[in-house]
Every structure is written in C-alpha cells, then in structure tokens.
C-alpha cells in the first residue's frame, strides 16, 4: 500500500504479523528436522525430547542404507530429470506454435486444451493405463515419461503461450535478415528471452514428477524400479512409529526439490505476471 508516513507502531505490528506467518510455515519444518536427530525413536518422541536433541546424522545414514533407499533416489532423479527436460522442450515448442503462427483451428485446439484442464486427473488414470498397456510399456520408465511429458503438455503450453506472446515480433527481424528460419527464431530468441517462465516451469515440472505417486504406482510394478514417493509410503508402512527414520528419509527426499527451487528461484522471482499479463 502506498503510504509514505507509517508510524513505528504500525510498522512493528505489520512486521509482527508477517513473522508470525513465517513461523507457522517454518516451525513445523524445524520440528521435523529436530525429530531426525532423536535416537531410537521407536515410539512418538516427547516434545521435550525433541527440543533437547544434539544434531547428528546417524538416522540419515541408517535410512540411506536401508531398503535400497539410494536406488529409489536415483530412480526418481532419472524420472523427474528426463520428464522436466522433455516437458520444457515440448511445452516450449507447442506454445511457440500457438503464440507465433496463424493456422486454421488454432483457437479451437487451444480451447480443447483448456477444457481438458478443468477435468479431474483421476478420471484419466485408468484409460491412460490402458494406452500404456497397449503400447507394451507397462513397468517401463518410457511409459512413465510418456505420461508425464504427454500429459503435461497441455498445462505447459497454456502457461508458456501467454509469456511468448509478450515477446515483441520485431526481435525476429534480425534473424530473418540473416536468412534464419522459424527454428532459429525459436532457439535464439524465444528460448533465451523466456528464461523466467521456463525457470518457473522447471520448478513446477520437477517438483510435480518428483512427488508424483498415483501414476507411478499404477505403471511401475517392479520393486527395484520404484520411485521415491512409493518407497517413502512403503517405508512409513514398515516403520510406522519410528518418526526419526521417516523424517530422515523425508528430508533426503525433499533435498533435490529444494535445490531445484533455489537454482531457479532467481528466474522464478522475476517471472512475471508482475509484467502486466494479469490484466484480464
């Protein structure tokens, strides 16, 4: 709000409210981290116990070696990494097609895209499974990748199209004068200028597939091929009351997403509906 003179009292009140808000979001995470330092937490640890722990990595080591956790971690990294790159590339290409070209049925196709976004995802899981089944790709990562990338193209197209349309067409002229075609315009102008939007999408795409549980559960049958969320659920089933282990495993599972978030955070901050595309 635009006020130049705000009294110290009100400033403190606003800061206090904001800090209480932060506390509500951050304290649960801190309590979770403290819990991972508790030894032999075979029952629910008392809060007084949790608050008086000394940091150590024992539980992390135990969990890392247990139940092939390392393996599931790599599986998930592979699946989410490939899906992220595939989604970004396919989404950018399709969005470029919708943003820069005129062709018959364009808006109709876009409406169909939009329409599918309104429909609950679970409705599609069973038929998606039958498609993958008939392609002979059940229990393969290729099947998962197809579903994640193909199923995600609608959302990413929708997201990136708006951004691409804000890029001035005049920028293309230099490439045209050099005799470059659509691919070079896409590669040398649209992709580099869309870093904020692509960075934001990278965060969404990575955290979405990294955390995806239900599709992975239906497609992957082989125990050694499981992803981290499934492994986490199983792990929780086996060690239901050892909260120290469960949260040590959880924190390991959170690390890559937090890392991706931090890496792309700069782009994310700039990304922008702040640039005025929300005018409706």
């Amino acid at each position, binding site marked *: 709000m635009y006020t130049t003179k705000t009294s110290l009292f009100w400033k403190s009140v606003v800061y206090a409210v904001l800090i209480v808000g932060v506390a509500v*979001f951050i304290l649960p995470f801190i309590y979770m981290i403290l819990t991972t330092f508790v030894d032999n937490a075979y029952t629910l640890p008392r809060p007084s116990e949790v608050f008086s722990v000394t940091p150590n990595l024992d539980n992390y080591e135990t969990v890392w070696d247990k139940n092939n956790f390392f393996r599931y971690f790599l599986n998930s990294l592979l699946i989410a990494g490939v899906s992220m790159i595939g989604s970004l590339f396919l989404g950018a290409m399709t969005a470029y097609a919708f943003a820069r070209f005129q062709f*018959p049925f364009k808006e109709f196709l876009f409406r169909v895209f939009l329409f599918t976004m309104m429909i609950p995802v*679970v*409705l599609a*899981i069973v038929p998606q499974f039958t498609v993958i089944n008939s392609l002979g790709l059940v229990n393969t990562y290729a099947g998962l990748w197809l579903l994640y990338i193909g199923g995600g193209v609608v959302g990413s197209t929708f997201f990136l199209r708006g951004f691409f349309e804000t890029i001035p067409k005049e920028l293309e002229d230099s490439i045209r004068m050099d005799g470059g075609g659509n691919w070079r315009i896409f590669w040398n102008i649209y992709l580099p200028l869309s870093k904020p939007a692509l960075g934001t999408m990278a965060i969404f795409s990575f955290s979405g597939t990294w955390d995806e549980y239900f599709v992975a559960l239906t497609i992957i049958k082989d125990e050694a091929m499981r992803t981290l969320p499934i492994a986490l659920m199983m792990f929780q089933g086996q060690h239901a009351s050892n909260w120290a282990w469960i949260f040590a495993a959880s924190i390991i599972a959170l690390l890559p997403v937090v890392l991706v978030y931090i890496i792309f955070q700069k782009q994310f901050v700039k990304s922008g509906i702040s640039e005025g595309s*929300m005018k409706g």
Partner: protein
Amino acid sequence: MTVPKLETQQLKKQHTPNPGRKEKSALTKGLKQWGEVFPFIIIGLVGAAVFVIYPLIKGIIMSFQDYNIMPGADSPFVGLENYKQAFHDEQFRYAVRNTLLNTVVTVPINWILGLVFAVLINMQFIKYKITFRTLYYLPIITSWIVVAFLFRYLFADGENGLINYLLYNKLGIIDEPISWLQNQWTAMVVIWAFHIWKTVGWTIVIYLAALQGIPKELYEAASIDGANGLKLFKNVTIPLLGPVTIFVLINLVIGAFNIFPQVYFITNGGPIGQTEVLQSMIYKEAFNNFKFGYSSALGVMMGLTIFLITWTQQKKIGRQRFF
C-alpha cells in the same frame, strides 16, 4: 480442413469473380500455414491427443459400461446404471459433502489470508520482500507425502503430539489431549488446516505479483487528490485487483474441489469413510474395488460440476498465465 470455408465466405462477400479459385486459395493458404506450424505443434498435439484427450473420452464412455479391465473380457453397456448407483451410495454422500465443505471452508480463508499477507508484504517500508515470499511459498514446492507425514506427526494422539502438547500442556486450552484423526470432525479440521497451509502461498504470490503490477502513478495521483492510506486501498487497490481476484477464486475453487492427496495421505478416508472426498473415492473405486465404470461415472459428474462452476469465467482465464 473445413474451417477455411469460413474465410472463403468472407472472401465471397468481398466481390469475388471466381469463387472456385478463391476457395482453393483459402484451402491452400490453410494448408501452407499448417505446413509451417506442423513441426512445432505435431508432437504436442499427438501427446495431448493420446495421453489427455483420448483417455478423457474413453473415461466418459467407460462411465456407461460395466467395464472389465481383463483383456478380451466383455464390457457391456449399462446405460445410466453407474450414475444411478451413486445416489444410493452412502459413501458418495459423504464424499460430496466433504468435498463441498472443504470448498466452503478453505476457499474464503485461503483467499483472505492470501490477500492480507500479499498486501502486508507489499507495503512500502517492508524489507526482505523476496525472503518473505520465498518462505511463504516453501510449502507449495514441498512433497505432499512428506507434509502429510508431518501433519500426522504434529497432530498425533496423546500428550506427545506437538499440537496436543501446546494446547493441553502449555496453554491449557483443552481439557484432555484430542485424538485428532480418530474423530470425524477433528480429522476434517486437520485436513482443512493441511490444505490451507500447503496452498495459501500460491494465493500470496499471485496477489503480490498483481499488486506490484499496479503503476505507482495511480497512487500518486490519488494522494494528490487527498486520498489517504485506507482510501487509497479502497479506491485504487481493490478495483484494480478485480480481474486477478476472479482468477484466484476460480483456481482456489478448482483446487479445493480437487482435494485428494490431502485426504488420501492423512486419513485415507477414515474413520469409517467419514472424511472421504470425491477424488479419493474415485481412485479407490477404480484401483481397490476394480469398479472402473462406477469410478468413471463419479469422475464425469465431478468434471461436469467443475466445468459448470467455471465455464462462465473460462474466457477470462483463457489468455492469462498460471503462475
């Protein structure tokens, strides 16, 4: 190619001596345009057609069948049987009630909290805006499963659950530790709290971006006219946030309707199915009970409801960007 006809009709109106030739040229033009866009669009179109659109259509067809997943087995059409069944299903009543309740409870809270915090962070004298924003957004990127574990842990039974410990041992607000997840309504409170905690960051970030998009000159002009803080907010900020508010509310409603991992990972519908919501029921009917037809019918009804709620606003959202 039928759409070029439209263009042709317009061309005809513009006095065309040789309609046949013109029609051909419109068709050629359309084909040429498709030729150019084809390499960029084809993979996306095929992907969407095979993995999104076809499954949805097939899902709708399945809702009229007694669907059998075994290869070669019969899946006879049963008309509206699956839909009728839903209205005699007590579980379905719980699921509808809880989904609606979740929407009614969480959307206003989410919206007000999001707006208030965005306005506060955006105040001129606040430093570390980006830090606040990053912290508030943190729950959004965190795994649903992990946060569900966390909430189950915080709301654990007995004196050792942190929430009970704070409310009972420290503050003394409650007479005895609450068994949060064992009772229908306390479990619902946990689910709502989980939903709001996990998603409110989105609302804050969207409003913050919208607020930062309001030109400073508008405020300056209004303050020259003698408007003060509250007046500025009422007469400048609120009206300019109108379109964003529609966008936010619709997305909050869709999000609240689509509540699923919130319930699946926290209570899994318990106690005795009283906290079930539509999506978790749809999922379980398909993958635990193998009633694919019935599950699809529930999905179609839910999809239609969401569509009806949002279709008037679709045009407006159409060209806007999600965050």
